[in-house]
């Protein structure tokens, strides 16, 4: 080794420590960034779960009723519709607490039970006509205040005149609890009901079905349209053509347009011009398709570009036509990427609120939609509506709805991953 080489080595060595330090430092920056991101995610999930998990249980209250056959027979829907079940439940409550007198006191007592209890009792009788003439104990929904108290969400140290639940009511609740007449059970109502003014009766079925229908419409329209557009632009359209360039620029710009603008477009075109019914999943899906389409096209084009040109050459080389080349070779290879793009677009559409507000999907809807043309809301809109409500019972339901939305998203992503796996395995 000569002197020059030794010198070079010295110079390199002297700088080596600094280079290593820089590398280590950079690695730590990366780790810290990831840690911060994960911490925020964990915080978000924790706070949502902590607030919302309790909504998956609901307080039920046991009432004893005597099913008087003289009043209730025959147990047909027409006849039972005229029976005063509310009276029966109130009577049962009065019998449980004989010491309660006075109109105010009694009204406070009746509020322990949800207003839907009468319907629950009626439905129960309809299903069990053989129980007529017997004294039965059935479990009905408790009022939201009771539910909140049972979940420990009522602060008893607050002066009585500043809280909804009065001291008397708390005493009764404790009494009922000791008798085993109050119970936290799985909250079916949350999954089977539509919206309601009463928190304990409010559920997400309308929103869930609305979102599901909209996703179906959006997927069925934006995926084939987006892929067809991407294939044409990428594989067939002449390059360096003014009109093709214009189309490309516009698609890229559309992807960046605020979503509420698409809502306005949907309002003007689908509701205004075509006269489609308001607040329906069909219109919501169409509007979200407009919003999703640019994303799907851009992602699909990226997936097509990623297919190596050698595959196209190979297919053309054995005499495949351009269409055959695309459909036999390019498209199958690009499909996993296209699916990812579509799912990203769908996930964005699922979480979208603003355009739906414009087309009237923000309505208060109790009955679940039976089809694409029935009024419905969407999960994010329902969250928005509940988050606006002052009742304590809606706070946990808001978080619970967010959990459902996140699970929905998670399932969609899982489906995408599974589909990708399957498609990729074929090669």
């Amino acid at each position, binding site marked *: 080794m000569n002197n020059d080489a030794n010198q070079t080595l010295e110079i390199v060595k002297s700088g080596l420590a600094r280079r290593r330090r820089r590398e280590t430092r950079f690695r730590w920056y990366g780790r810290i960034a990831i840690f911060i991101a994960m911490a925020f995610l964990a915080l978000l999930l924790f706070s949502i779960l902590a607030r919302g998990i309790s909504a998956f249980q609901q307080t039920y209250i046991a009432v004893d009723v005597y099913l008087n056959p003289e009043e209730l027979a025959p147990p047909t829907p027409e006849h039972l519709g005229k029976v005063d079940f509310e009276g029966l439940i109130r009577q049962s409550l009065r019998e449980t607490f004989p010491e309660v007198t006075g109109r105010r006191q009694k009204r406070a007592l009746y509020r322990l039970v949800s207003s839907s209890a009468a319907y629950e009792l009626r439905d129960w009788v309809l299903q069990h006509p053989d129980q007529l003439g017997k004294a039965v104990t059935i479990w009905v929904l408790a009022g939201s205040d009771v539910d909140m108290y049972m979940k420990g969400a009522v602060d008893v140290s607050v002066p009585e005149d500043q809280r909804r639940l009065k001291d008397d009511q708390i005493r009764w609740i404790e009494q009922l609890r000791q008798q085993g007449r109050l119970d936290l059970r799985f909250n079916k109502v949350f999954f089977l009901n539509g919206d309601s003014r009463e928190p304990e009766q409010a559920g997400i079925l309308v929103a869930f079905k609305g979102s599901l229908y909209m996703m179906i419409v959006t997927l069925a329209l934006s995926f084939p349209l987006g892929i067809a557009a991407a294939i044409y632009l990428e594989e067939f359209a002449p390059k360096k053509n003014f009109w093709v360039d214009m189309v490309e620029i516009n698609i890229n710009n559309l992807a960046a347009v605020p979503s509420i603008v698409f809502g306005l477009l949907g309002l003007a075109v689908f509701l205004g011009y075509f006269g489609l019914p308001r607040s329906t999943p069909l219109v919501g899906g169409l509007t979200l398709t407009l919003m999703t389409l640019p994303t799907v096209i851009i992602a699909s084009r990226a997936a097509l570009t990623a297919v190596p040109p*050698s595959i196209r*050459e190979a297919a*053309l*080389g*054995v*005499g495949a*036509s351009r269409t*055959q080349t695309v459909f036999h070779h390019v498209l199958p290879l690009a499909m996993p990427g296209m699916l990812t793009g579509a799912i990203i677009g769908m996930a964005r559409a699922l979480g979208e609120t603003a355009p739906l507000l414009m087309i009237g999907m923000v309505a208060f809807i109790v009955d679940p939609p039976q089809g694409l043309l029935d009024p419905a809301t969407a999960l994010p809109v329902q969250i928005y509506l509940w988050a606006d409500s002052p009742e304590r019972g809606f706070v946990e339901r808001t978080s619970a709805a967010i959990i459902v939305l996140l699970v929905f998203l998670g399932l969609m992503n899982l489906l995408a991953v599974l589909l990708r796996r399957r498609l990729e395995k074929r*090669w």
Partner: protein
Amino acid sequence: MSTIMNTVEEFVETMEPQGKSVADSEQGYHTVGEFSIAEPRISCRHVNVFYGEKQALFDINLDIGQRQVIALIGPSGCGKSTFLRCLNRMNDIIEGCRVEGKIQLDNQDIYSKDMDPVILRARVGMVFQKPNPFPKSIYDNVAYGPRIHGLASNRTELDEIVETSLKRAGLWKEVRDRLDHPATGLSGGQQQRLCIARAIAVEPEVVLMDEPCSALDPIATATIEQLIDELRERYTIVIVTHSMQQAARVSQRTAYFHLGKLIEVGQTSRIFTNPRHPLTEDYITGRFG
């Protein structure tokens, strides 16, 4: 580089036409050697190729004979690949590429309106520089061409075509037991032979090979070269190569391209022993390239 340019210019100025072996052209250069032969399979006359404004090939005249191997040699960027891709219109898919002149396959103009590129490419197959099997099974790779052209009416016929093609490509023994395995799992040399099998499965008349061995090791190269020699009995083969030894080993005729011009063409033995043009001589003696 400028010295080479000067050489070309000087040469062009001093060159005298020598009977039928030299072509006259507007560009004022002449191909040395016998570009024209009797009963050619492919015949190219006055072929000019442009990529947008840039001219890539200048007035190429070349005949390609039946059942023989012609090697196209020359330094990088000389236009030999461009010329090769003209022969099955693979240049069609390149935006802004324009081909002028006349290229005839069995006396039929391949750039005429009546010629469907799909049919042309079935008659003129191609093997590429990098092995590019479809990401499918070995069987499907070979069967793809016959399938889309409808060459087999049933599964048995298709099986036969696949077997014959793989046998001709010298790959049958190695893959016979795993036809349903993915082609991408084969070695580089095997993949390239699979690509050859895929190309000959549609029974082309001509097989174009664009540096088929450049991505392969010497042993795989030797196998492919031997294969080319065998395939010569059935097909006309045009091979682009960077290796002059390869050209000398596999080809009967050799064409030397330089800066988009066809400088010299002739019998391989003659070109390598007695090059007439100084550029050819410089190249094959390794003075540049």
